[in-house]
């Protein structure tokens, strides 16, 4: 009887020691991890985020809870993210260049800078695209620019929001085709663009590939150019701005996961490994590609460098946008 008690006691002690040892070395994660999305539930960042969370939590060993902190074009969520403890239990999506322009526009009075984030891994890169209604008089990118030169400030060009990647793309186009001036109309997202274009209230949309792939395939709308250096795998027939002689019109929107600044290396390493594995998973790849979303996995340093480069590029156009009389 005594010996049994001793055995149990030793067993318990060993188990305890093991747990404590664990806690010292690699306690992370011992409770659920929150993954913040700076947009409301149901948007494309949110859906892609939920897909990766569902796969990653299997190898993380703890649930990953998606928390939506939508509002103010993402600013509410990012403010929340940088205020968290950098212990790896609260990470979130940053959307470049939207995150950059919020920082760069002094009117936004953001409480964070580019240095307040620890980039962990990028998930999606969605190139920009310029499209018109199928019956539009603009058959090519050149037609569009010629039109905007001939009668400046009459062609109504829609963004998906102020200082979004699409807004910067219009400015890039005006820069690359001197004399072309668009009448910029800021709409809320891709659905609004589609509606107003179909109704004839807007002439041309600056958008991202993911939202319109299927409509281009079905012939409802016509793509004029993908704003990238190489063709999109979803739209192999659509020429790029580089091919068309406008190599400076390059625009995209990326979504990746970051944490607050100052995250410890062991935690970061674990998150990178788990998230990379989940993003490489065929289920993840398939689910994203059916939505027309291109994967671009960039881990750690590479992603940090991308963040810094995007920030530099966005700086010039943000200042430009602010100096225009009507922006």
């Amino acid at each position, binding site marked *: 009887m005594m010996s049994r008690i001793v055995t149990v006691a030793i067993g318990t002690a060993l188990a305890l020691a093991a747990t404590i040892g664990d806690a010292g070395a690699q306690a992370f994660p011992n409770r659920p991890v929150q993954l913040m999305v700076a947009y*409301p*539930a*149901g*948007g*494309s960042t*949110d*859906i892609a985020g*939920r*897909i990766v969370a*569902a796969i990653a939590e299997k190898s993380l060993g703890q649930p990953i809870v998606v*928390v*939506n*902190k*939508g*509002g*103010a*074009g993402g*600013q*509410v969520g990012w*403010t*929340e993210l940088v205020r968290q403890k950098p212990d790896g239990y609260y990470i979130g999506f940053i959307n470049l260049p939207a995150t950059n322009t919020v920082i760069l*526009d002094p*009117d*936004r*009075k953001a*409480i964070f800078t580019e240095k307040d984030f620890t980039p962990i891994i990028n998930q999606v890169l969605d190139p920009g695209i310029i499209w018109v209604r199928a019956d539009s008089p603009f058959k090519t990118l050149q037609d569009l620019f010629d039109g905007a030169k001939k009668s400046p*400030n*009459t062609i*109504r060009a829609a963004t998906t929001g*102020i*200082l979004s990647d699409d807004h910067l793309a219009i400015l890039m186009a005006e820069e690359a085709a001197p004399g072309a001036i668009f*009448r*910029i*109309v*800021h*709409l*809320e997202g891709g*659905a*609004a663009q*589609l*509606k*107003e274009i*179909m*109704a004839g*209230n*807007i002439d041309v949309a600056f958008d991202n590939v993911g939202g319109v792939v*299927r*409509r281009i395939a*079905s012939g*409802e709308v016509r793509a004029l150019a993908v704003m990238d250096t190489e063709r999109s795998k979803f739209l192999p027939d659509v020429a790029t701005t580089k091919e068309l002689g406008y190599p400076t019109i390059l625009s995209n929107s990326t979504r990746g996961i970051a944490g607050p600044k100052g995250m410890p290396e062991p935690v970061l390493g674990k998150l990178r490994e788990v998230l990379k594995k989940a993003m490489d998973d065929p289920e993840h790849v398939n*689910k994203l590609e*059916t*939505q027309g979303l291109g994967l671009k996995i960039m881990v750690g340093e590479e992603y940090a460098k991308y963040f810094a480069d995007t920030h530099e590029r966005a700086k010039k156009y943000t200042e430009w946008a602010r100096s225009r009389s*009507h*922006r």
Partner: protein
Amino acid sequence: MVDTFQHLLAGLTAAMSLQNLSFALIGCILGTLIGVLPGLGPAAGTAILIPLTFKLDPTGALIMLSAIYYGAMYGGTITSVLINVPGEAASVITCFDGYQMAKQGRGGTALGIAAIGSFIGGIVATIALIVVAPPLARLALSFGPPEFFALMLVGLCLITGLAGQSLLTGLVMAVLGLLIAMVGIDPVRGAPRFTLGIPSLYDGVGFIPVVMGLFGVAEILLTVEAPYREVIKTKLTSLLPSRAEWRRSLGAIARGTGIGFFLGLIPGVGAIIPTFVAYVVEKRVSKTPEKFGQGAIEGVAAPETANNAYANAAMIPLLTLGIPSSPTIAVLMGAFIINGLTPGPFLFKERPDLVWAVIASFMIGNVMLLILNLPFVGLWARLLRLPYQYVCVGTLLFCVIGAYSLQQSVFDIGVMIVFGIIGYALRKIDLPIAPLVLGLILGPFIEKSLRTSLEMSGGDFSIFFTRPLCLVLLLVAIAVLVGSLLRLPPPEVRKSSA
């Protein structure tokens, strides 16, 4: 037409399979729960449940998600009637008369007529979807930002002209609502306004915490003043409306269906506006407008019918044009896309089997909701027999959880409490709350559509007068305002307004 009928029959057969029926049932139950929880609205609720449907086939997944959606539209009514807390935004207006009915012991009737009205509205809208969808949806597209602006103005004029003791108090409260709606990041230029540097205010003052405060918390404060209020006695036998109530409700249900259906066709209107329009129209055509806000059954029947007719009609722009007309519909569209389908004119041609099965399931879902809800009405009504000191603690807890769950934000709980106190004060000094709420809801829409219109015209205001539809709507707005100035009912009648 014969073709359509055949498709529909095939769709009904597919939707009637045991598997799809159970998806619709599960969806209705989950949806009702989402609707009952304040804070968790249909958009967020549907989005969170999307992963649940990953493993289903597309037809099953879409049937279930659509059922969640209109289940939620009904569920919100229950708390509006029982405890004066709207479960979701489209049920705000139901508080005005629904809760008054409950106080008079007619809570069961209110829930009953809401279920029946929702059923009729939903079914008629679905039939209309089958018959007249494509041409109507094209027509609705002619509602661009300028027309939208004018329409919102009509709505605002309608309600300010009708609520309150005078046009002046109505206008003051509407402007107050518009001012509160200004808080947050400017929707066009992106500059923060009236945020006092508080990040939580960058997104504006949340609409749901505000209405939960103005209605739910204010009601608790008022009742606590008279703590020994008599327990509400609802006779369980009186679930079904009496003959007289039926007579008054039928017209309301018919008008609610029409209003919900037509507003559902216009992308961007959202679920709230049809309920307000239906309520206001009902009050205007009523021979006894003084009864509104005092438990008029038409005041429950019309908006509840309108919101379900809207919910079903809003599928038309999605299925025919591929344009999501509200956040919830956008989530549903996301679900279509994840399942490899893009809603739009081509979907009807490529996958008629799936589209028609989903349409058929709308009808089945509406029947199911009615069957599900009528027996439960008795159960819910029983809640009203609890002594109020328990109910009020429960209500407050429920409000706090609801406000928090909206964005997982403690700040929203604070907003709710502050607006609870404001709502209490407004009731004490007898200022109308309805125009304030409408100003708050319409504010962002009005601002956005006004400024987008001006962006379209390069700053030229003539855009509002050169588009015929827009001009007509603006004239209607003026007529409504002038009309309510000229035809003011005697003050004692107008006093009744909520």
